[in-house]
């Protein structure tokens, strides 16, 4: 039996807005195994981000169980959750969320500052290694405003990677990028996945989802459809086949 990184059971999330309650998640069950690359899909407002934020321990579920790497997250205090996020989770946001006026390397180093067992030298080495893994070692001293959107997202991926998390969670990481750059980012994710890193990713687009190993589709806070992708496309191949646009 393979190791389950994520197990959720009957997960419910309500947003109480006073006079009305938004049922963002109405009872979700699924698992993510180690080494999987899962895409969470669905229309806008179906609860994808809500779920991912709970999986990332950025938010708490209203009810239901969530086991991350076999630990019951429900019992954790705020501080324990922070440690959990620091050690087990890498988060990639749609809007990159890099610190301005801070070099790529220092942005990647950020999570390690909150890990007392990592000293300054190790911090630099690991950040440089993570940047190398996303192919940006040569840009490590550049500031976010000197990088393209795709490059900034790579820096963000390197940051999510630097702590050796058990899972990387990405909420529409290609949402702000054109399709060429999106494929590029997906190629990075595929490469990381091939090295054994588990990834959960939210996306709207099915041509992004085709690069993952399993697609879970949401509708109105419930799982609507779940398919295992039979023949996973390679993003780097798709990239090379893509015509180089000459019209602009």
């Amino acid at each position, binding site marked *: 039996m393979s190791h389950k990184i994520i197990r959720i059971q009957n997960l419910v999330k309500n947003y109480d807005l006073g006079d009305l309650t938004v049922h963002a998640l109405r009872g979700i069950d699924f698992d993510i195994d180690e080494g999987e690359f899962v895409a969470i899909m669905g229309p806008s407002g179906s609860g994808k981000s809500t779920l991912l934020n709970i999986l990332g321990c950025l938010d708490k579920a209203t009810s239901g169980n969530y086991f991350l790497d076999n630990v019951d997250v429900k019992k954790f205090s705020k501080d324990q959750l*922070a440690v959990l996020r620091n050690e087990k989770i890498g988060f990639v946001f749609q809007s990159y969320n890099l610190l301005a006026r*801070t070099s790529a390397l220092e942005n990647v180093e*950020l999570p390690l500052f909150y890990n007392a067992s990592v000293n300054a030298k190790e911090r630099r080495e690991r950040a440089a290694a993570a940047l190398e893994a996303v192919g940006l070692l040569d840009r490590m001293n550049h500031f976010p405003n000197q990088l393209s959107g795709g490059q900034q997202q790579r820096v963000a991926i390197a940051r999510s990677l630097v702590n050796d998390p058990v899972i990387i969670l990405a909420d529409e990481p290609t949402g702000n990028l054109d399709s060429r750059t999106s494929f590029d980012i997906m190629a990075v994710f595929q490469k990381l996945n091939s090295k054994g890193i588990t990834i959960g990713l939210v996306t709207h687009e099915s041509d992004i989802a085709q690069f993952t190993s399993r697609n879970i589709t949401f509708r109105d806070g419930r799982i609507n459809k779940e398919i295992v992708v039979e023949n996973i496309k390679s993003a780097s191949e798709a990239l090379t086949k893509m015509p180089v646009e000459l019209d602009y």
Partner: protein
Amino acid sequence: MNILNLLKVASNSLTKNKFRSFLTMLGIIIGVASVIAMMAIGQGSKQSIEEQISSLGTNILFVRPASQARGGVMMGVSNAKFLTVADADAIKKDCESVAAVSPMVRGSGQAVSSYDNWPTSIYGVNIDYFLIKNWEVQDGRLFSNKEIRSSQKVCLVGNTIVEKLFGEGADPVGESIRFNKIPFKIIGILKIKGESNFGQDQDDIIIAPHTTVQKRILAITHVQNIYVSAKSSDLSKEASEEIETLLRVRHKLVPSEESDFSIRTQEEIMSRLTSTSDILTALLSAIAGISLLVGGIGIMNIMYVSVTERTREIGLRMAVGGKGRDILLQFLIESILLSVVGGIIGIFFGIAVSSFVSNFMNWPVQITIDSIVLSFIFCSVIGIFFGWYPAKKAANLNPIDALRYE
């Protein structure tokens, strides 16, 4: 997070956002500097007023008959007959803390020269008077003890008298004037003293031996006041007590009787004047309070805004594993650094402004340690609190709410 990382994160954040740090610091710099400068200017004026007051001499004492002192504020022509030249001599002889003693009688009337006339006062004193008042002779000489004993009709005149009776720049030494028809020979001219703090022209005066004034002008044997100077201003209280004891014995008063004279130290009289400087002090405190308030509100605003603006950053730091405490400590260290550095710059700035005002505008300024300490502590505390409080609010949020904040 360990303290080293914390310091690094905080100082990184400050140095990478120099402009924001500078703006934040500016609130503190201006707050501190304005309080220091305001207080320095106010304190300077207060000090210069006090200096003028104390230049009158805090070691001078006046003895006067009780009936005159009661109710009356200034000395007028009095009928009291309780003080005598013998009293003055006894004080000089027996009181240890006393340096100089002069009896004093004063008459007013018309002074007439061969050119003009002028209403003025004549003071009858002995030569100690010039010591007590620290008054020098500009031209000519003082009268001698012999001239006092023999009631010579000699006098010294102030500069106003010279101008009024002889014209500006005249040298009337050796000339004669009449005061209330009694002729006096001018033997000296007094150094110019100018206006007193009470606004009196101190040079509008004729000074003659007290014996002469007593006999020729007033026809009395007693004296109106006795001027005493203590050996030092510290000794003026002792001198006062010694005189009190001595005069009670001399006046044969039993313990149940009230003294028939009163002793005032210069200090006591000046205390009425210093109420002016008390008003100044109150005004100063109000100015300082308002500056602090305004400065404080400025600091509060800029700190609050800059931290609130960084809520997303706080969310990100929490998302990558920052605990609430780590975030709070970071912001606390940042605001302490800003407040302390800003406060120190503010101190220098405040000192610079004060010395500018003193050098180029010639205002008296007096920088006080109090104002430095007060403004520094107040501004730092406000800066630190309003750096800490919004950070605490943000750190208490769910990471996701902080990340979504706009």
